[in-house]
């Protein structure tokens, strides 16, 4: 327990924990101090100076986010001196900022705009500086747009890229009036070691870093009578979307989301969960195959541990940073890309559609998925497998544009085929979910019995610890898997690329022995993805995770191999996991990328 101290804020004595900052103590006491560079996920920077407060006995104002409380400290958050200074600072930021708000993608969801509105900055006294700088907008990345003219240099993106992701794609360049957030040799975002994870986007307070949106392209496809537009929704979208549409974090909106998508005019509303289950079948089989090749056949061409491959940010990361480890990656495509390949083959055939006329749209909690869909090898259906990728936020914008009263919608069910979900696929949205789903299925395939965890909840792989480990001992397997008898299958789960790095290094240095490792690029997994509602922070991630596990618990089928549509597709189309059709449509390869 932290020591309790007394602190006086605006004349009232409050109890605070020793070691807390003034900002934390004030917010706990219900007193709001505005901030810009502060973010709960990140270390304290103290550079925007918006959160300044007056401390009795000090002539200078203190940044409350960076100043620890002391016993009997007397703090004032709203004196004339504080207000004047804060107003000046907001004015200064606005003078440097391209404050053309009506033409900004973040109009209405911008922390600087909110502050300007709160402090009623009406004067145009200061010289607009943005006009004097040669800003250009970096639009080369398929995922992220970087507009320096809207940057307030709070360095939240820099800290995100370094502290949460360990990628350091964004960094501070130059000093003084030239200081800006830039990349390696000021290259554009598509030419650098950027994983497109979009964590910088959800941590940016303004419109300086935004996703590349494909809203108009989707509207055009819907409006085209010749096109059959299918949409797939990722597991984490259904527990995040509500936040953008006036509902509390952690609200499950699956049925309403389906209703909204139908109302928007999509011809068929399908579920990425279906291909998540398919991923489990393929990836689980691949793992068992690798175990056999390595443990029994001693085949050097197969490597353990096997890493999951669902997270495109993680894929690009390993391609850049550890190209020598690519053989450890599962060859399975991500659920989005499996869906794309099947939409224009299996689905087209079943629905008697010309695949050329199908537009395949996906709604993802992710910006890296935009890059993934754009990869040149993702054309196994004979066409571009996934045509357009929009984020949870973009879908919310479309729903608002269509004038839909989202909270009042009646819940609807997904269309068929490729619309059946299981608890196993829903938890793909949370860190540890792929692992849990894979273990539920693989254990049963090998032993013929359910995995021995209460209610199938494999709790060791759940939670928000950066790296988690679990192991399962295979006991009395079926005849085919006799070589696994008594083998302890060791697993690890990591989320956030900074944690991924730890695990990869441990594997590389042989400090840890695992068989199967799940890695998600974003903190919390997809539920905290770069395409999710803003704000996203640890509290909100916890609520979304809770919603995901509720959804799992409430679904009638909770194991991928029991998904009726999965059984059907193997019977009618794919024949068996790792079969020839699977190999062609559902598996992929990786490329080595440069580090600079």
């Amino acid at each position, binding site marked *: 327990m932290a020591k309790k101290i007394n602190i006086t804020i605006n004349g009232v004595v409050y109890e605070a924990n020793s070691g807390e900052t003034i900002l934390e103590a004030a917010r706990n006491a219900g007193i709001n101090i505005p901030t810009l560079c502060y973010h709960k996920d990140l270390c*304290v*920077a*103290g*550079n*925007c*100076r*918006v959160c*300044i407060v007056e401390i009795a006995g000090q*002539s*200078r*104002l203190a*940044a409350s986010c*960076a*100043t*620890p409380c002391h016993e009997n400290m007397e703090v004032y958050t709203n004196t004339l*001196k504080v207000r*004047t*200074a804060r107003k*000046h*600072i907001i004015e*200064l*930021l606005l*003078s*440097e900022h391209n404050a053309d708000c009506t033409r900004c993608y973040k109009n209405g969801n911008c922390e600087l705009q909110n502050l300007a509105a709160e402090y009623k900055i009406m004067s145009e*006294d*200061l*010289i607009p*500086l943005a006009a*004097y700088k040669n800003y250009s907008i970096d639009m080369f990345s398929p995922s992220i747009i970087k507009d320096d003219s809207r940057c*307030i*240099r709070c*360095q939240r993106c820099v800290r995100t890229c370094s502290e949460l992701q360990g990628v350091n794609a964004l960094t*501070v360049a*130059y*000093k*003084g*009036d*030239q*200081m800006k957030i830039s990349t390696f040799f000021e290259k554009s975002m598509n030419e650098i070691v950027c994983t497109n994870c979009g964590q910088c986007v959800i941590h940016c307070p303004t419109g300086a870093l935004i996703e590349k949106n494909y809203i108009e392209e989707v509207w055009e496809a819907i409006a085209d009578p010749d096109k059959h537009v299918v949409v797939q929704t990722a597991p984490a979208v259904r527990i995040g979307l509500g936040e953008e549409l006036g509902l509390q974090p952690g609200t499950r909106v699956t049925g309403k989301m389906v209703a909204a998508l139908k109302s928007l005019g999509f011809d068929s509303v399908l579920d990425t969960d279906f291909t998540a289950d398919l991923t489990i079948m393929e990836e689980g089989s691949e793992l068992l195959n690798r175990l056999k090749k390595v443990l029994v056949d001693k085949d050097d061409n197969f490597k353990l541990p096997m890493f999951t491959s669902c997270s495109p940010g993680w894929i690009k990361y390993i391609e850049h940073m550890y190209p020598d480890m690519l053989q450890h990656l599962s060859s399975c495509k991500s659920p989005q890309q499996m869906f794309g390949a099947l939409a224009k083959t299996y689905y087209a055939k079943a629905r008697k559609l010309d695949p050329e006329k199908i537009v395949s749209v996906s709604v993802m909690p992710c910006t890296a998925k935009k890059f993934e869909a754009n990869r040149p090898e993702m054309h196994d259906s004979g066409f571009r497998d996934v045509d357009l990728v929009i984020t949870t936020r973009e879908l919310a914008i479309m729903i608002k544009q269509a004038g839909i009263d989202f909270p009042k919608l009646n819940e609807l069910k997904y269309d068929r085929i490729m619309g059946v979900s299981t608890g196993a696929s829903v938890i793909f949205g949370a860190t540890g979910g792929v692992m849990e789903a894979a273990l539920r299925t693989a254990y049963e395939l090998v032993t013929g019995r359910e995995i021995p965890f209460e209610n199938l909840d494999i709790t060791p792989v759940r939670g928000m610890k950066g790296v988690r480990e679990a192991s399962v001992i295979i006991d009395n397997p079926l005849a085919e898997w006799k070589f696994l008898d008594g083998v302890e299958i060791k697993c690890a789960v990591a989320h956030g690329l900074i944690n991924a790095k730890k695990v990869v290094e441990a594997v590389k240095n042989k400090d840890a022995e695992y068989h199967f490792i799940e890695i998600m690029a974003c903190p919390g997994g997809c539920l905290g993805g770069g395409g999710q509602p803003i704000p996203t922070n640890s509290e909100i991630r916890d609520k979304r995770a809770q919603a995901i596990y509720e959804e799992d618990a409430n679904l009638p089928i909770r194991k991928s191999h029991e998904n009726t549509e999965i059984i059907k597709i193997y019977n009618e189309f794919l024949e068996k996991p790792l079969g020839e059709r699977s190999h062609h449509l559902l598996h992929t390869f990786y490329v080595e990328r440069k580090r600079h």
Partner: protein
Amino acid sequence: MTREYNLKRADFIFRNENDWEHILSRTLKKDRRELINELISSELKGRGGAGFPTGLKWKLTSESEAPQKYVICNADEGEPGTFKDREILMKVPFKVLTAMAICAYITGANNGFIYLRGEYKFLQHDLQKAIDEFIYYCNDINFKFSIDIFMGSGAYICGEETALMESMEGFRGEPRNKPPFPTGQGYNRMPTVINNVETLAHTYTIFKHGAKKFYDLGVQFSRGTKLFSVSGDTPKPGIYELELGMSLSDFVNDFGDGDTKAVQVGGASGFLVPRKKFSETNIGYKGKLTGISLPTGGSMMLFNSTRSMYNVLDNYLEFFREESCGQCTPCRVGCQQLHMGIKAVKQGQKPASYLEKLLKLTETMQYTAKCGLGQSVANSFSSIVENFREEMIY
């Protein structure tokens, strides 16, 4: 005979004494606490410009518990118009090295660093030779200590102690949030004494001659002597060791060219004093007894009537605009606004009253900037604009 001025010259720093080995071995035998008390009683304050009591700094560091402690000599002499540290390191490096070793002895540090300004690269060779000789002697008397030179890369902001440490650790030279202060968490987050070159040289004098000798010089609150870097419109530019507490009119009488219009005390981050205020201005740290007291890192720039104060200010602001690290809003944007603002007034694009808006802005910079750089831009700005308003407008 010329009139006797109130300027008291002194000669401690550059006196060639060549007795450092004796002073070092003698001091290292003394009790640490006594040495700290000696230093505290001298009332020596930091000579870099900020004026923090040196004895207290060493005491706080010695009381911090940590597996590792450091002593850093700040030789990133970047304040415009200051050039005294260079001379100290060229002429009497052993005094500084001895002081660093004594500081290490007192505080429990094992490693010392000299953060040498990038532009002083030419000093590195000779200084390294001196260090080698010094460390050889330390080994001889069985005192474990190392001193390394760390070359700066030319950023003014790296003279700020925490930015300096960030730079030494391999990061961008950006000042840290304070607290924590370096005495508790400095270089590598370990307790660190960081002193200006001249401060260290003064401690040598104190440990050699005793605190009383030092204390008896200067005036109340501003004890001892100080090196002044005199430049500008003066017939005798150079470095002078003077007792603190002198009045600015005496200084101008001695160093001026007879036409001194104003003196910039303390470099670009200091204050400009116009002629009418020379007599009421004293050079020293803030105290209760003296009139206006202006501290300085030693830079004294004299301007005569041929100088445009607008140009002087324009020059300072351009300097700050470039040399701000750029991380905090008031400093990064504030400097740009001030610089462009005075130009807009001069060119008639903004009314004269805009100067008042800018003055208020500098007040905010002073209260809210993260480090001394942004906080002190207000000094030169307000003192020039308020005293030479006409020159700013027409």
